[in-house]
């Protein structure tokens, strides 16, 4: 896909963000040019240290040759190099059907010519990145820690974010930069060694060029400084990769999935994780969906590689009515308080607004059913204390104490009004407050799993294993159905009423 965009010469406005694609191409050229200059300078200095003045051209020429070889290797071997370095292994269909399904779904949404090859990285730190494998092929790597904590919708959000990077042509630049950096760090090291030992060799063969003139001493500190500086400068260029690319990949992800809450919730979980990444090296760090834990020391060298996750989450959470590019831009300006100039006018002109979709029923209780850790424990305690869990559309689960005074509750995050299930207000009814007396349908729970109740109006309602309330309220007609907990012996359970 990436290749196709380039070869066609046409604008892919609707799927990829053309302004970003163009910008990425410009930065790729800038990166290559800077590396050439840097390498050439380094080569010239090393040459001078070794052979004196004629060595300058020799060194520069050798460095240019090396530069070409580096580019060639980065383009041809870059992806497999990164994969080998990280130790990622390809996913097998029988082990991870869901992951492969989600990847296939997102490839379809993006109309990629073929889905990215998917790899798993054995690492408890939840993260994901995509790399460009050349000739229209891309690879997607997710850590095993990510698969552990995310549910389907969240995984879809993460995969869509990475596919967004692919569509926006980010992965090509990032892979190129990553592999070139790996190479240049290596080369700087070799040069440093050559300077340290080269002078000794030079003296031993007592070349007249080496030991004549004051400038023969100059290359030593210069080459030292350069060698030390090169990785830093290179990394700095690398970090100069726009942080906005993350916002734009988020925007693309939201357009692909039509479900901002999935990615937002995934980012929350990833950000909450404190597991340090095993693979925390500077070569792959900017590729990850969020900055790997333990990588902040990189900040001393070139700053953060990612925008703050909190901002990204708040933006995503505020997209509830429309998930188009324009809405994302509006939300960005509101949250970051900066003009979103990186959204190009010609991209926005054609952007359509789409309504977000409903969450999968698997995720009726976000952050509760699958969320482990402290929050899960707290929620468990609340459940024991008969709190009710009200899922809001924004993704937040509002915990309502057993006795609620109001029929309507404002969501603390988005302010949307939520209807408190009558179960909680029944307590009041029993203590004297009059309730409307309609004959109520009774549903006996069968077990502790997912169950469905058909309302008297015919509407189908889902009970999650986490549901502890005593009443469910139909969203269509508003009628309530009593839910009785499962009896200890399932054989004696009253069969559920069916419409």
């Amino acid at each position, binding site marked *: 896909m990436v290749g196709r965009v380039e070869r066609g010469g046409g604008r892919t406005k609707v799927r990829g963000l053309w302004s970003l694609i163009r910008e990425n191409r410009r930065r790729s050229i800038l990166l290559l040019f800077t590396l050439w200059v840097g390498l050439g300078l380094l080569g010239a200095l090393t040459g001078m240290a070794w052979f004196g003045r004629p060595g300058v051209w020799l060194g520069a020429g050798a460095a240019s040759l090396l530069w070409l070889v580096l580019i060639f290797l980065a383009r041809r071997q870059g992806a497999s190099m990164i994969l080998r370095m990280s130790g990622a292994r390809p996913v097998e269909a029988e082990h991870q059907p869901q992951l492969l399904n989600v990847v*296939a779904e997102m490839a379809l949404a993006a109309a990629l010519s073929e889905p990215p090859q998917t790899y798993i990285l054995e690492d408890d730190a939840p993260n994901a990145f995509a790399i460009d494998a050349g000739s229209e092929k891309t690879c997607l790597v997710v850590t095993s820690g990510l698969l552990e904590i995310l549910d389907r919708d969240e995984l879809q959000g993460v995969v869509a974010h990475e596919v967004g990077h692919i569509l926006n042509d980010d992965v090509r630049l990032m892979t190129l930069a990553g592999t070139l950096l790996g190479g240049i760090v290596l080369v700087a090291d070799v040069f440093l060694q050559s300077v340290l030992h080269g002078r000794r060799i030079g003296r031993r063969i007592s070349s007249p060029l080496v030991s004549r003139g004051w400038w023969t001493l100059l290359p030593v500190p210069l080459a030292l400084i350069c060698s030390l500086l090169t990785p830093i400068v290179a990394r700095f260029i690398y970090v100069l990769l726009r942080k906005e690319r993350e916002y734009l990949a988020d925007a693309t992800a939201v357009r692909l999935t039509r479900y901002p809450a999935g990615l937002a919730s995934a980012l929350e979980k990833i950000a909450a994780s404190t597991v340090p990444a095993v693979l925390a090296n500077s070569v792959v760090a900017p590729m990850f969906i969020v900055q790997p834990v333990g990588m902040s020391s990189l900040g001393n060298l070139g700053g953060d590689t990612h925008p703050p996750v909190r901002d990204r989450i708040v933006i995503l959470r505020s997209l509830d009515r429309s998930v188009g590019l324009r809405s994302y831009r509006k939300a960005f300006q509101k949250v970051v308080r900066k003009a979103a100039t990186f959204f190009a006018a010609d991209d926005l002109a054609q952007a359509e607004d789409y309504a977000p979709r409903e969450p999968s029923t698997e995720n009726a209780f976000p952050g509760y059913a699958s969320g482990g850790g402290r929050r899960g424990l707290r929620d468990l305690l609340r459940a024991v204390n008969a709190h009710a869990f009200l899922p809001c559309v924004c993704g937040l689960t509002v915990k309502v104490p057993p006795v609620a005074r109001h029929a309507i509750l404002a969501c603390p995050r988005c302010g949307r009004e939520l209807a408190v299930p009558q179960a909680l207000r029944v307590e009041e009814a029993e203590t004297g407050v009059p309730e409307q007396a309609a004959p109520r349908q009774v549903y006996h729970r069968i077990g502790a799993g997912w169950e469905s109740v058909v309302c008297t109006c015919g509407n189908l309602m889902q009970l999650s294993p986490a549901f502890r309330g005593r009443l469910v309220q139909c969203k269509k007609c508003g009628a309530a159905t009593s839910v009785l907990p499962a009896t200890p012996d399932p054989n004696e359970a009253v069969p559920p009423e069916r419409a």
Partner: protein
Amino acid sequence: MIGGCVVLGLVLFGILTGIVMFNALVRLRSETDNAWSQIDVQLRRRYDLVPNLVEVVKGYATHERETFDRVTQARSAAMQARGVRQKAASEQAFSTALGQLYLVVENYPELKADEGFSALREEVTSTENRLAFARQGYNDCVLEFNVKVQSFPSNLIASMFGFINRDFFQLENEAVTEVPRISMR
């Protein structure tokens, strides 16, 4: 002499621009075709899934014959449909029937606990998702292509070489085709 050069340059420039625009149109058209064939692939995936699903559900819900028959009929009708619009219409009927089958599944909790069914669960979810996303991807491609075909100056090239607007894959009533979301757990 100079005038001739200018004219020649302009003509060359025009031809080159035309070639670039023509190539862009061809690329978009093939992408759209590819996206359309993806919908077909996903539809076939769903057709293949149905007999399996019916087979598993049958074991538990013997008296839901009517639903099974309806799904099977709608399936064969949808398989025979040709063209974007006809396909969309027959798919709608098939989706409705399939939705009823899912509802049947919903009514048999023992079925949801079935070993064979739990393997199918993810497949059903993904198949429905893939279809929806393939449709979305196709519509995005069509939008892109149609904009190119209609807008100046590429519309000149488009009309010259017979590039015509594509139909969106639209469903008459989204609510009808919305497959009931079931937990399938």
